[in-house]
């Protein structure tokens, strides 16, 4: 009886098959991690309520009209200037009782960062991208000021503290310490942004 050896399978095309699969997964992969701007909506209130007293100087009004133009404190403004204007407003120190502010103490801007409120109002026809751009600039202003204080107090930026805090292990003392730092910086410049829809 002749003993036949099984012929060897040619594995040369294996690479081709693997490449095909690889390309398929390369194309379908979205390594997207979800990013975005976090917001907290105000709870629903029944019936009319008196708005809390806010001094005129402490309110920073940003309106966006249907043509996506900005009106900041009754003055037309380009979005590229919004960040600077917001920083000037928050950091103004109108009463002179904020020892970490470096503002110019102008009479018609905020008295203290903890009192400052930013009111964004938009028309129904405002485009979403403009709205996000405005929100982004406002957050950028807060981040700029928080970074400044954070570097002064702890020698590192607010964002680096935040990312370390997120990466730290739950329940560790390090996380607790970072959280305290972060909360303190946040309390220096609390984020108070209201969103509303205007009639027009």
């Amino acid at each position: 009886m002749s003993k036949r050896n099984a012929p060897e399978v040619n594995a040369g095309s294996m690479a081709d098959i693997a490449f095909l699969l690889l390309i398929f997964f390369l194309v379908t992969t979205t390594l997207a991690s979800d990013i975005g701007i976090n917001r907290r909506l105000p709870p629903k209130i029944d019936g009319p309520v008196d708005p809390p007293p806010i001094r005129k100087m402490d309110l920073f009004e940003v309106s966006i009209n249907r043509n996506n133009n900005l009106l900041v404190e009754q003055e037309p403004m380009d979005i590229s200037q919004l960040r600077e204007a917001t920083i000037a407003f928050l950091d103004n120190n109108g009463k002179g009782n904020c020892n970490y502010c470096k503002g110019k103490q102008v009479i018609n801007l905020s008295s203290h960062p903890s009192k400052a409120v930013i009111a964004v109002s938009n028309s129904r026809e405002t485009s979403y991208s403009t709205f996000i751009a405005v929100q982004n600039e406002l957050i950028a202003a807060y981040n700029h000021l928080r970074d400044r204080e954070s570097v002064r107090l702890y020698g590192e930026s607010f964002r680096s503290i935040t990312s370390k805090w997120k990466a730290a292990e739950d329940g560790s003392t390090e996380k607790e310490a970072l959280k305290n730092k972060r909360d303190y910086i946040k309390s220096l410049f609390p984020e108070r942004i209201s969103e509303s829809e205007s009639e027009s």
Partner: protein
Amino acid sequence: MSKFNKGGGKELPAISTASLPDIVFMLLFFFMVATVMRENTLFIENTLPSADQVEKLDKKSPIMYVYAGKPGPGYKKYGTEAKVQLDDKMVSNVTEIQNFVQENRNRVGETQVGKLLAALKVDRSTNMGLIGDVKEQLREVNQLKINYATVNGDPTKKK
């Protein structure tokens, strides 16, 4: 004769490609593991607006997605006005968001309800009126944690 110059003219041996499949398989497995298949088929255009002051969403907390935008090409049967899409269905009446939130709350269980986040994935050209309506509906059911989903980029640049 020099020790290093051996008689010249000798051809280089062919490089073995036997390990090529191994390398490709390694890459393949990486992408297979890292791939997240899209859960929902989108009936709408969904180009997110760009922003650079963004936070990463916490993967540990449960997320529900609310999509909105104009119906995409091939889905013109839904009209041309911007609409909301929840899971796999187009929604003509925004009040259905209330049911959607309720379903998601049941899904994640009682202990996680407080952490539930509504991520708004809205097309950049959508009017704010629709988003205002969505926010109003979320407030109705006390779903206050929201996130405006964006992509990284400079928002002040006009596109």
